[in-house]
């Protein structure tokens, strides 16, 4: 049972949030020998980890922040080992594939813009991912089913994807096997700092922890100010569809079309500012489908078996926020949008930084102080 682990109501460190970010950090902390309690909400929650597109994606990341380009690249490079360790710790294979990824462009104009962006990024962070521009013919050689409307695209060989639901499940299993005390149905309502740690109030009881990590996704916005941190994150909706299972035909993922290891083709994913609304709409789904049909005309005949809307955890500039509290020492904040891509970095570098309380240069750029003043503890 989940409750039988070595640390329950009193622990070294509490991680708040059971999405992939919280789980990755908790897994990294437990692997470093800390007694971790992981607090999560119930079955119905905003949980991007259940609805994401599962890309381990590098190209185009960090256009305005070279540190983020490096950070992403580092995580992608660490993913192979991470997946292997996680497989050993959980018994679950994540179906990681890093054979490159393509952004398909449907007009010359789009292709030019995209190419210009990629070279700007390359100039800012020359040590990072190399992105090639391919024309229609070159893409057709790689993906014979591509449609005539695809004029070209940008390809990066560091891109890839995983089975995101198995990542989610494997992190859970590995955390439990590493002795983490998992406390579901325990939404954190209040945080109070005391002489030697924190009191964490949930409807299912109080927990004491010497230190704590906020990794509650969209929930961080409310929790952070309680411990002298700021998490100005907002929801951004993405709608996704998946088709019936097809025989494998896609050798590598596209930015908005990928075939899962199980065979379904995922079509994504919109970027909508609609607040806390996880619904879907035929206009948006229709637009996504229309784009997919232009890229792979034969897909028009495939049946959509499910669709969903999920909320991204977005900071004002879209980059992660990693912070430690000045006014409440021992409180940390970890939140980001690309939690799948960054899972490897969260389980290693971030977990190490928190475990040792030594903040490496690589993450210095990601403090919320870049957005202005950080409030004092409530």
């Amino acid at each position, binding site marked *: *049972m*989940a409750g039988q682990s070595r640390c329950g109501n009193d622990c070294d460190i509490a991680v708040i949030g059971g999405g992939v970010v919280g789980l990755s950090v908790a897994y990294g902390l437990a692997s470093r020998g800390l007694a971790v309690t992981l607090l*999560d*909400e*119930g*079955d*119905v929650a905003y949980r991007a*980890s*259940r609805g994401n597109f599962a890309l381990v994606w590098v190209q185009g990341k960090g256009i305005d922040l070279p540190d983020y380009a490096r950070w992403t690249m580092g995580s992608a490079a660490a993913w192979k080992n991470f997946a292997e360790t996680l497989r050993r710790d959980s018994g679950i294979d994540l179906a990681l594939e890093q054979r490159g990824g393509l952004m398909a462009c449907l007009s010359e104009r789009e292709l030019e813009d995209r190419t210009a962006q990629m070279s700007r990024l390359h100039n800012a962070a020359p040590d990072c991912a190399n992105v090639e521009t391919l024309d229609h013919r070159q893409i057709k050689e790689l993906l014979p089913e591509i449609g005539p409307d695809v004029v070209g695209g940008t390809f990066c060989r560091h891109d890839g994807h995983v089975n995101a*639901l198995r990542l*989610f*499940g494997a992190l*859970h*299993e590995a955390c*439990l096997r590493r002795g983490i005390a*998992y*406390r*579901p*149905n325990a939404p954190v309502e209040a945080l109070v700092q005391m002489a030697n740690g924190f009191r964490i109030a949930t409807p299912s009881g109080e927990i004491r922890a010497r230190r704590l990590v906020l990794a509650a996704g969209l929930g961080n916005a409310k929790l952070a100010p309680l411990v002298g941190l700021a998490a100005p994150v907002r929801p951004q909706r993405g709608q996704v*569809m998946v*088709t*019936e299972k097809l025989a494998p035909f896609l050798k590598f993922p596209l930015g908005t079309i990928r075939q899962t290891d*199980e065979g379904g083709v995922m*079509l994504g994913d919109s970027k909508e500012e609609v607040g806390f609304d996880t619904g*879907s*709409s*035929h*206009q948006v*789904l*229709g*637009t*996504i*489908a*229309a784009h*997919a*049909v232009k890229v792979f005309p034969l*897909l*028009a*005949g*495939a*049946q*959509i*078996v*499910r*669709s*969903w809307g999920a909320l991204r955890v977005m900071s004002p500039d879209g980059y992660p926020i990693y912070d430690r509290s000045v006014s409440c020492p021992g409180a940390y904040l970890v939140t980001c949008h690309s939690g799948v891509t960054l899972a490897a970095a969260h389980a290693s570098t971030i977990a190490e930084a928190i475990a040792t309380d030594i903040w490496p240069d690589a993450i210095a750029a990601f403090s919320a102080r870049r957005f202005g003043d950080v409030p004092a503890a409530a």
Partner: protein
Amino acid sequence: MNCDLLIIGAGPAGMAAAITARQAGISVVVADENPAVGGQVYRSVETGPLVQSDLLGADYSSGRELAEVFAASGAQHQSGTTVFMIERTQTHGFTIGLATSERARMVEARHVLIATGALERPCPIPGWTLPGVMTAGAAQTLLKSSAIAPEGPTILAGSGPLLSVLAAQYARAGVKLAAVLDTTPRGNWLKALPHLPGFLMSPYLLKGLKLLREVMSAHRIIRHVSALEAVGEGQLSGVSVVASGRTFMIPATTLLLHQGVVPQVNLAMASGVAHVWSEARLAFEPALAPDGETTVPGLFIAGDSAGIGGAQAAQARGLLAGLAILDRIDPATRASRQTQRSRAEASLARSLRGRAFLDALYRPAPQFRMPADDVIICRCEDVTAGDVRRLIARGTQGPNQMKAFTRAGMGPCQGRSCGLTLTELFAKQTGRSPQQVGHLRLRAPVKPITVGQMAGLADAEQRD
């Protein structure tokens, strides 16, 4: 094809609502995925091969009259048309997605009535995915629409009124079953007893006794069956049975399962309608106002998708919903519909009498709802009860997190074959009520449409 009222389902509830609404001359469209009107109970009632015979019983024939009135009502019947989503518009109306095998489109309607009926409760027994195992409802559908019956050793197993109805229909057709296996738990009789008076005054009593006589004289009935297993290598070859403590095997090429019916909830849940768990009927039912309106204003539900009540109740509920919709459109003339309303209310009350007795008597035993660990519960993704129990023990919070971890409910049937089982497994193991556990979140499109059809929806939007 925009309209005042769009009805989904052309069974007794949908047809009755359409007829009622058409009295006031409003425009009504009725969409149904089947090729002809009738729904499940009156399937093929207009043109089926058995409409002239009395094999299917008097109740079936009464559906013909309804179908005739419906055909003359002026409601537009869209057959072979699946409704895959209902969205609310800004202007207090609805946009409804309709798909035929050729194309999908969105139409607008001021009011919507969901009358999609029931589906059979999942019957997860060992081997229920073997070819040759079907539901009793499937077999009855084949009988009604094509006059087809099983040949070779056939077993009918389970509990519920449909079991006797089908057995009697087969008896009349000269089809002999290898056995009828009654899984009704012994103790149910005692629990049903307090509801007996209502049943004695209901139309079910006489019908039930007559059916029972027919069934008993034609087929071998084995009662007190407490376990069933479908056996075979890639194909059913027999059924292993435990009855009154004895275990034995009956060879069979067809096994027809039934454990009662439950409301179809996918479209309503995906449209945001709140549902509540019925402990008496072990199913989720929409939260409805007395006139059939859901928690989504302007969206109504009638018939078995409102709660299982049978054909007569469905028809009465359809009529009442039709009247309520007319009241919304033209409140001034509400009083003129009072007589009709009272009559329908009385008819509904009459047809629901005796229902509580049937609910208690035919309440399926727990082992037929929450099977042993090695039994598949999600047919689409091959997830077993054991997979689910193990993860519940690991702290998995509920059906939605379970779906992420196991893929249960992710296949094309969208949880129709495993949703209730998941909820009940959670409730049992965690001590919460099924209401607290909740149901898998359901979403549009509630039936698959192609990527091309979906893409067409965006094109149409741009043209406007």
